[in-house]
């Protein structure tokens, strides 16, 4: 079956990444360091107010936000795709993808999944370790809320996937897309992965709401924390699906135009 070939590619890509297990060391150090810094900052803040709620959120909610957000971010991110395409364009490896009776974007996505799983394994370990250290986190209010969170998480991944495919197509016009990707990283920081959006001034919140990034990460997080009622959950799904369809159409259009411009570098 053809679909199985894509699974194999993801698996091989994971297996190839695992030959470089040393990357894990820096990944683990940075993740743990980041968590320690954030949690200690919030601990200091909350202890100064005797653990009373800050802006309506308890200390436990805050910690839950950061720990769950690690999982949300790692699961929904698709930032391997633009990078992979750029790299395959600049080394000319894109040529070997085009020789297969397969969708080049399917190959890209499968390869990116391999790399994603590579980082997902330690991030689960870090998550479990942190939960044990802080002594438990807030759980979803009901199985229904948890199911809605999972659905929203998958939709969030699709938003990021479509967005990254849009970014990736720029590689057809400019061989160097990483600078562009960097610029965009600034906006991704407004997706709620760095700071909960409720802490931002209202004008900045308004900007965030107009961008697709918060729909990918902040929206599932809000559902998890139970800040959304059933009607709002449905509306949130609607917003997510809107972004998926919109970005899908943009990337489809760009891809069709871009692939005519393929140049294969390196002979």
């Amino acid at each position, binding site marked *: 079956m053809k679909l199985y070939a894509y699974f*194999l*590619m993801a698996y*091989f890509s994971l297996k*190839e990444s695992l030959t470089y297990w040393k990357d894990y060391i820096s990944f683990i150090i940075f993740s743990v360091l980041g968590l320690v810094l954030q949690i200690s900052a919030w601990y200091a803040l909350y202890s100064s107010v005797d653990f009373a709620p800050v802006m309506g959120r308890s200390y436990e909610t805050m910690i839950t936000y950061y720990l769950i957000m690690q999982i949300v971010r790692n699961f929904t991110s698709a930032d391997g795709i633009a990078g992979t395409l750029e790299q395959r364009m600049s080394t*000319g490896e894109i040529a070997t993808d*085009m020789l297969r009776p397969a969708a080049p974007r399917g190959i890209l996505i499968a390869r990116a999944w391999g790399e994603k799983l590579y980082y997902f394994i330690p991030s689960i370990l870090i998550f479990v370790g942190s939960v044990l250290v802080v002594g438990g986190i807030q759980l979803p209010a009901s199985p229904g809320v948890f199911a809605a969170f999972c659905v929203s998480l998958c939709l969030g991944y699709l938003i990021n996937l479509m967005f990254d495919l849009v970014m990736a197509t720029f590689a057809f016009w400019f061989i160097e897309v990483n600078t562009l990707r960097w610029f965009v990283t600034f906006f991704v920081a407004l997706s709620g992965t760095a700071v909960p959006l409720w802490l931002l001034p209202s004008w900045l919140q308004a900007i965030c709401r107009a961008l697709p990034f918060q729909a990918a990460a902040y929206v599932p997080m809000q559902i998890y924390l139970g800040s959304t009622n059933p009607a709002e959950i449905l509306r949130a799904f609607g917003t997510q699906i809107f972004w998926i369809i919109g970005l899908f159409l943009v990337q489809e259009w760009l891809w069709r135009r871009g692939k*005519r411009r*393929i*140049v*294969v570098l390196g002979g």
Partner: protein
Amino acid sequence: MIEVENLCKDYLVKGSKDGLFSRGKQKKRAVSNINFTIHPGELVGYIGPNGAGKSTTIKMLTGILLPDGGSVRIDGLDPFRQRKQNCRNMGVLFGQRSQLWWHLRLDDTYRLLKHLYEIPDEQYKARLSVLREILELDEFWTQPVRQLSLGQRMRGELAAALLHSPSYLYLDEPTVGMDVLVKERIRELLGEINRRDGVTILLTTHDLEDVERLCSRVMVINHGNLLYDGTMAELRHRCPADSSVTIDIDGEPILPDSLRSVKREGSRVSFHFSRHMGEGELLAKVISQNHVRDISITEPPIEEVVRDLYEGGENA
């Protein structure tokens, strides 16, 4: 059948002549109005200096690049617009680029290709065992690809290109960087694949020996223009380069004045002659007028023949 008609491809070359911000863009024609037809079962050599347009042509035949003009039809298919369909019937090998998974074993790549090309189990097993045998893959079957020598890897690449039993095989410099023995082995294998399965092969190379040993037909390209399309023998005939003759003579040699580049070394006399300039008679004269003990004639190396053609093309 591969049918190429008035094929063109341009590249935009960014010039830096206009300073930092306004960079002039120049159009460079990589392939210019090329026409040829390759029939099933042919083994065709495609040669030309660096940047002549060989690889660009191959990339258009394989559907990677969209032509800027003209058309390519492979068994009636448009390789760019019907890419996936065309892919199923072609194998490609880029000498400078690997299609194997670098950190994995050979059979991992083959397993993936089996599913990508949807090869039925039975057919896959049979094909793989044939390829393992003729390409002698067993000795390094379980090693990661990164540990293979260039010759071993290239055999692995060939198997990957042939696994789905394609009718067309495009080889872009398959012998680049190989030593003489390995080159010889790869040539034998290509010849065998062509004869055994009737695979149509288009071979791009810098090594003219590849072409001389393997190909019945050769196409020469330079600056995007097809300069020659015909047999190897005809190519030699068309671009007469000098052969060199060495004669071992008893006694004082009697030599006509019109002989060129005469060198004497004891009883040995060597000179150049071109059989296409009516100099055959001259040679006969030398032989009849002297007591010849031994004679040897060295054909001009094919490199010289082709160099003449490249230079001719540049002047034209």
